[in-house]
């Protein structure tokens, strides 16, 4: 594509010009905000301004947004466009066709994958060392976690519509690191699935971890914990609420969630 040639020709003028980056994916937005310099960021997805899903929503609000359409992205002339695994296929294909450099951020299904994503975005925006340093810090935080696991209470992720997360998911691993046993894994759910009322009564979790996306709405986990069947079974699981902006995507805040859940576990043990 000769367009690229023009773009790169223009860049020759500056010494080691900063990589101009655009993102059309919420999770990529977060990592770009985390790792890139302000001047590098050309555009973020519309969702980046949304406080329910975007961890850095305040920071994001100083940047322009896009609806993820090829035309908007092309006018920005970014050096790299970060797209999500489930971004619109047609847009992705078209962006490639007009000669832009694309990087796809996969959905992280483990803490390791979260770290990989951090490293990859750091590389894509030209700040590899920044990423490596951050990862080292995060690994240390994992090591520093209170490791005595004499009490391992049972919990389940309980999201709207009964969605829950098994061991092969970031949220499942968060529970693991925080010292909780995962009721969903016991119920045979590997990654995503639905936890039935019967499974909850059978497994008797000590806590339900909810992270509803729409803030201020009636808590589904709360409603579930008040279900007559649960009350009759003598269950009264503790409801642990985590803001959805900390669970929608993976990043350094994921480690905050681990620490938060560990604190909740210790609190439960001391009661």
């Amino acid at each position, binding site marked *: 594509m000769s367009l690229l040639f023009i773009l790169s020709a223009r860049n020759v003028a500056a010494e080691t010009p900063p990589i101009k980056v655009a993102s059309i994916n919420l999770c990529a937005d977060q990592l770009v905000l985390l790792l890139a310099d302000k001047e590098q960021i050309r555009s973020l997805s519309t969702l980046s301004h949304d406080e329910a899903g975007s961890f850095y929503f305040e920071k994001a609000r100083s940047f322009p947004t896009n609806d993820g*359409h090829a035309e908007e992205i092309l006018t920005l002339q970014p050096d790299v466009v970060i797209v999500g695994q489930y971004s619109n296929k047609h847009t*992705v294909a078209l962006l490639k066709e007009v000669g832009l450099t694309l990087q796809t951020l996969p959905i992280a299904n483990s803490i390791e994958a979260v770290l990989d994503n951090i490293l990859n975005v750091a590389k894509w925006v030209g700040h590899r060392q920044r990423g490596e340093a951050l990862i080292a810090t995060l690994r240390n935080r994992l090591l520093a976690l209170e490791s005595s696991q004499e009490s391992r209470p049972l919990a389940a992720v309980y999201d709207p519509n009964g*969605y829950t997360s098994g061991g092969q998911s970031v949220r499942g691993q968060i529970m693991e690191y925080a010292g909780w046993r995962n009721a969903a894994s016991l119920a045979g759910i590997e990654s995503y699935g639905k936890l039935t009322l019967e499974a909850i009564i059978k497994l008797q979790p000590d806590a339900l971890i909810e992270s509803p996306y729409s803030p201020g709405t009636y808590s589904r986990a709360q409603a579930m914990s008040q279900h007559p069947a649960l009350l009759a079974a003598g269950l009264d699981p503790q409801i642990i609420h985590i803001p959805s902006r900390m669970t929608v995507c993976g990043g350094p805040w994921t480690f905050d969630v681990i620490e938060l859940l560990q604190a909740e576990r210790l609190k439960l043990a001391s009661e």
Partner: protein
Amino acid sequence: MTLSQGKLCTILSVIALLLFVVSVSIGRDSLPLFAALKDTLAGTDSVYSVILTQIRLPRALIALVAGATLGLCGAAMQGLLRNPLASPGLVGSASGAAFFAVLVLYFGSNIVPPYVLPLAGMFGALLATALVYALAGRDASVTTLILAGVAINALATAGMSLLLNLAPSPFAVRELVLWTLGDITDRSMSDFWLMLPTSLIGWAMLVGVGGKLDSLTLGERTAQSMGVNPVHLRWRVFIAVSLAVGAAVATVGMIGFIGLVVPHLLRPYVAHEPGRLLAASALGGACVLLAADIGVRLIPTDSPLKVGVLTALVGAPFFLHLIVRSRREYL
């Protein structure tokens, strides 16, 4: 109300052309159209010319072709079945195309190259029609054919529901659902070149059926006595619709109501003649889809509006209005 065929088609062509130009000219951000044109004609690869020729042009072209297909096939199906409620989806090709496209999204979304999606859709459309043929038999009556089409539609819908049900994550569900809504955003010229041949074959097969559909006004027997072979005509229309609609659905997803409402709307202007309606309805369909696709870009919504949703939103009440009006006429 009746206009001469030449006049009506000229008017509709002019409207389609204007809408095409508008479609190419508008977007979220304004494009210096003349600069873009100048760059394009000069062969300069500026950002503007790329936006014009590789983003907006394919979008407008695909809207034009898919809209024309839906209008044309709606008119052909209504003429063939002699029923104003017939739609291009009746033969099962649209849902067949949608099912196969969703199947590709589900299993191969990150493995297969992008052109596999429309190809799978077209294959699904043909397979659905082949199944209708196998179910109904060569000499099937119109009623049997419709029933077979309904059965295939139900099967494809069930298949899609199954895939949604089994989808590995909420993200996958979202992708599958959004695809079925119908959208022309960010299609490329390769998408256009992929849909064009099949669409043209479908259209070509419908060239010259106008007179036969006119004869069919007097019933199948009389039409037969007037030189129409009803079995040939039926399959010719079915296969044509399957090819053209399959290509359209595979490229833009499900876009409802154009095939139903446009022929209805234009019928009075062609003196209700099913033959004359074909060309008019094709042009009308192109106009409506181009307009709807302009609409989704102009209507400010938080999440970008899908064109299939807009046509359904406008089409359904409009259709109700038509029903109420016709009821009043027959009272």
